[in-house]
């Protein structure tokens, strides 16, 4: 293993601090103390919040499948679709854009996967037991979390936050029939007004799942466990410190859509925070956090039959960072300021074992120890009018990448003899979002501009094999900054029992980064069709629209439905990959007297806009039907909650556009969840 030496970019951060001090200074000086209470507003205006926490009794029952994986929770969101390479570690996409175009954070912490083949989206390093909710911001509404084009997702950790609940605990278990998934979890919490401690643990183990028609999907097993500890201590009435530690380890994870599995994916995520209710008299909710996380990811092909060449592909990713943020209110203006920075090291290598064992091992660096420094300032002003509001926000960031390993630098110089060791960018984001209420109508509209730097793979990847389009990918350190201008609009008609929303957004992404075939290059991976170089297209266009509704049929019955359509094309009008066809979902939920039930249908139309250049084939239309049933019992003061359900009742054999290499999805599945909480 490569030893990393921690070098923190003090210089860059110092400059960033100065910048923010100047900006704040100019804003602060003419203002007076405010009277508006600190918590009156949630200043990050989000498109959607998914409630995940398993311990919040009432919410819990409304969830159709309480102990499902985080991936399933995210997939239930209106705006997120998950790309699947197996049963585990799905990759979130938003507005038809994946990891590199999204800012995904855990409690505000930047974390980057250590796998060159995107087998470990950072959502795979936390579990539902850790989280209270997922905050989702589409487009530049997610810029508070980091530079992004498609949006931002922040997974909020579950904390007691000095609520006077004393000791509480719960035990949970679930079983799923299709892949014999066993889940065991528990948590133990103590909280009073001065101190809290939250601990939880969860363990999941699943065998291969079966697709519709009882077809076993080999190498779809997984096993993982996750522990976390959260604690906070009040120093004074308005000051507190808190700390978080998460340990997550997955072993024996199969990826049926890929040529390799994973023998270890391990993350250690830690942070310490300092919170103060006010700052300089004018600011409120001042929160500062220092964090560090380290990930090790080891791919494994030893269990696969007929591999042309055995290879080891370990990867490491280490990130240290900070943020400090505060609110500031002045009359109609509600400001939110955040200064953040991180330093990431991404290193991945590949060792291949030649068939002729007399030959030396074949070694290359697939991620050449890329050091990424980023210091950003985010500011927003939420201006309240009588019946309308306007939110203006901006993110300005200094971003640099350096190839720290000479072996890696020399490797890339084979392709780019003139390349520099370091690449520096200044990233900007601006957005204006307007909301107006007129009788029962809500109008939301906005325009924004955002930029992002290429990901480590896009900039510095070295022969990364993509099994979807069967090409080796090589990064380009000279890629231009990708930028996007987007507009969104949504209209909601809202009555107490009835609500309907029509929304649409359009992204024009300039210098869109995607792999383009270079016929002059020879493949590295045996059996690959060719080599693609990450290239800036002149532009690409993405259009997403959806219609969703909610109707309360009675107090007990509620209907929800959603239909969406997406389109993505490049500057030649060619289809972009992984763009959703027409898709829909609809459900009837019942909830009365501690009984809950649901019946839902999920489906998609035929994927007619696909692109074979990216390995896509036409995915057929499908629909699946699922049902759930739950009951809550009171045992003395404690709660027992039982939920059971069937997914894919008709055992449909199908795959969606998000399924890597069209691996079929899970067939009929019965699940049972039991939670016992001690209050």
């Amino acid at each position, binding site marked *: 293993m490569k030893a990393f030496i921690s070098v923190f970019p003090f210089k860059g951060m110092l400059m960033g601090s100065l910048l923010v001090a100047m900006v704040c200074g100019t804003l602060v000086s003419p203002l007076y103390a405010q009277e508006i209470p600190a918590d009156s507003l949630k200043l990050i205006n989000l498109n959607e919040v998914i409630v995940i926490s398993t311990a919040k009794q009432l919410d819990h029952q409304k969830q159709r499948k309480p102990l499902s994986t985080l991936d399933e929770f995210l997939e239930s969101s209106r705006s997120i679709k998950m790309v699947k390479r197996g049963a585990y570690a799905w990759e979130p996409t938003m507005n038809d854009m994946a990891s590199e175009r999204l800012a995904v954070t855990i409690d505000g912490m930047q974390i980057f996967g250590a796998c060159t083949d995107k087998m470990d989206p950072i959502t795979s390093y936390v579990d539902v037991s850790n989280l209270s909710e997922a905050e989702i911001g589409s487009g530049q509404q997610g810029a508070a979390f980091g530079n992004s084009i498609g949006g931002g997702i922040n997974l909020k950790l579950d904390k007691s936050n000095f609520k006077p609940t004393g000791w509480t605990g719960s035990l949970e278990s679930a079983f799923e029939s299709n892949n014999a998934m066993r889940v065991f979890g528990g948590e133990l919490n103590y909280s009073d007004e001065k101190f809290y401690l939250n601990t939880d643990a969860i363990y999941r183990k699943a065998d291969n799942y079966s697709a519709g028609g009882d077809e076993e999907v080999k190498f779809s097993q997984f096993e993982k466990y996750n522990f976390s500890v959260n604690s906070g201590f009040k120093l004074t009435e308005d000051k507190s410190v808190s700390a978080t530690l998460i340990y997550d380890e997955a072993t024996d994870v199969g990826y049926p859509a890929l040529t390799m599995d994973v023998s270890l994916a391990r993350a250690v995520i830690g942070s310490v925070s300092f919170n103060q209710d006010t700052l300089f008299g004018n600011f409120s909710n001042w929160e500062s956090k220092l964090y560090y996380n380290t990930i090790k990811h080891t791919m494994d092909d030893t269990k696969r039959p007929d591999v042309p060449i055995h290879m080891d592909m370990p990867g490491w990713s280490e990130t240290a960072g900070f943020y400090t943020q505060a609110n500031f209110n002045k009359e109609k203006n509600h400001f939110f300021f955040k200064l953040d920075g991180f330093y990431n090291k991404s290193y991945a290598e*590949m060792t*291949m074992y030649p*068939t002729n064992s007399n030959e030396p*091992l*074949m070694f290359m660096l697939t991620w050449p120890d890329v050091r990424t420094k980023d210091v950003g300032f985010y500011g927003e002003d939420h201006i309240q009018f009588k019946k309308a509001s306007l939110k203006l926000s901006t993110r300005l960031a200094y971003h640099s990448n350096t190839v720290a390993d000479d072996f890696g630098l*020399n490797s890339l110089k*084979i392709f780019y003899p003139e390349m520099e060791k370091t690449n520096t960018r200044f990233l900007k984001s601006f957005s204006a979002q307007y909301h107006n209420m007129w009788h029962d109508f809500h109008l939301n509209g906005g325009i924004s501009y955002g930029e992002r730097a290429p990901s480590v793979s896009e900039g510095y990847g*070295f*022969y990364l094999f993509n099994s979807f389009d069967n090409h080796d990918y090589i990064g380009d350190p000279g890629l231009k900054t990708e930028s996007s201008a987007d507009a969104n609009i949504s209209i909601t008609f809202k009555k107490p029992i009835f609500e309907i929303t029509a929304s649409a957004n359009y992204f024009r992404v300039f210098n869109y980064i995607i792999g383009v075939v270079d016929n002059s290059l020879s493949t*590295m991976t045996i059996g690959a069709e060719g080599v693609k170089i990450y290239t800036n297209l002149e532009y690409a266009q993405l259009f997403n629209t959806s219609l969703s509704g909610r109707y309360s049929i009675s107090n007990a019955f509620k209907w929800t439905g959603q239909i969406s359509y997406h389109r993505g094309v490049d500057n030649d009008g060619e289809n972009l990959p992984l763009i959703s066809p027409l898709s829909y979902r609809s459900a009837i939920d019942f909830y009365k007297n501690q009984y809950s039930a649901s019946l839902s249908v999920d489906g998609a139309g035929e994927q007619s806009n696909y692109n074979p250049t990216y390995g896509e084939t036409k995915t057929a239309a499908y629909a699946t039907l699922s049902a759930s049933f739950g009951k809550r019992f009171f045992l003395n003061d404690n709660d027992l909650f039982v939920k059971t359900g069937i997914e894919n009742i008709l055992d449909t054999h199908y795959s969606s556009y998000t399924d890597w290499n069209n691996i079929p999805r899970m067939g009929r599945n019965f699940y049972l969840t039991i939670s016992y909480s001690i209050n």
Partner: protein
Amino acid sequence: MKTLTYIFAILILSVSFVSCSDDDENVPVEVNPVEGLTMIYEIEATDHTVQIYSEKQNLEVGYNEISIRVKDLASDKFLSNATPTWMPMMHMETMQHAAPHSMLQNTEEPTVYKGHIVFQMASNNTEYWELTLNYTMNGEAKEEALRVTVAQPVDGLKKTQVFTGSDDVRYILAYVNPKEPKVAVNDFQAVLYKMETMMDFPMVENYKITVDPRMPGMGNHSSPNNEDLTYNAATKTYDGKLSLTMTGYWRINLKLLNTNGEVLKGEDVTEANPESSLYFELEF
């Protein structure tokens, strides 16, 4: 206040200390002119010795870079006006032949004479290589002959090609650099000689050797941005670029073209023809 004065004094002292040691480093250190080389032979004559150095531990089939110096025992100094020449000769049972070699020339170091010999074959019990050295000492011509052992390279890799071209000329192509290949664009260097007679191996100028590195173990993977070997009149070698995308076993497929661009030896690598008959092998 007093402690502060002390600290100040210590600071000043340490600064002056540092500056002193800086001065010391400027004193020139005598450089050993044969640093990193191994003395593989030493000929002891009455009033002088001849030392033969190589980068390797012994002479091998293929390209050998050899350094020579002559020490006058009377003055205990190495000569800088020895003007040595040499001739390697293979004594076989029925015949004898020479080997391609360069002139011996002064290097930056005036007492060290450097040149190279491309041995086409290894020596054995009955067939041996003899290296004859001619030089002058104090205006007097000297000659020494030395039997040398030439071994096959231990790694068993093909780095020397002796072949007859389509023009019926016998050629000797030998790999020179990179000595330590890297995952990078390497400076690639080779020497090309032809056999005019058994004793005469002139250097071939202005031909071209195309370069196509492949990894047979990886489905004949190749690399971009290689540069063909072309003649460099200054160094009298063929220079090009060799890109190696990973460590491992590489077969460098070559094609020799004369000044008219006619192929004298070697073939293009295609799906049907995975390798050229003219090649070098590398492992690292």
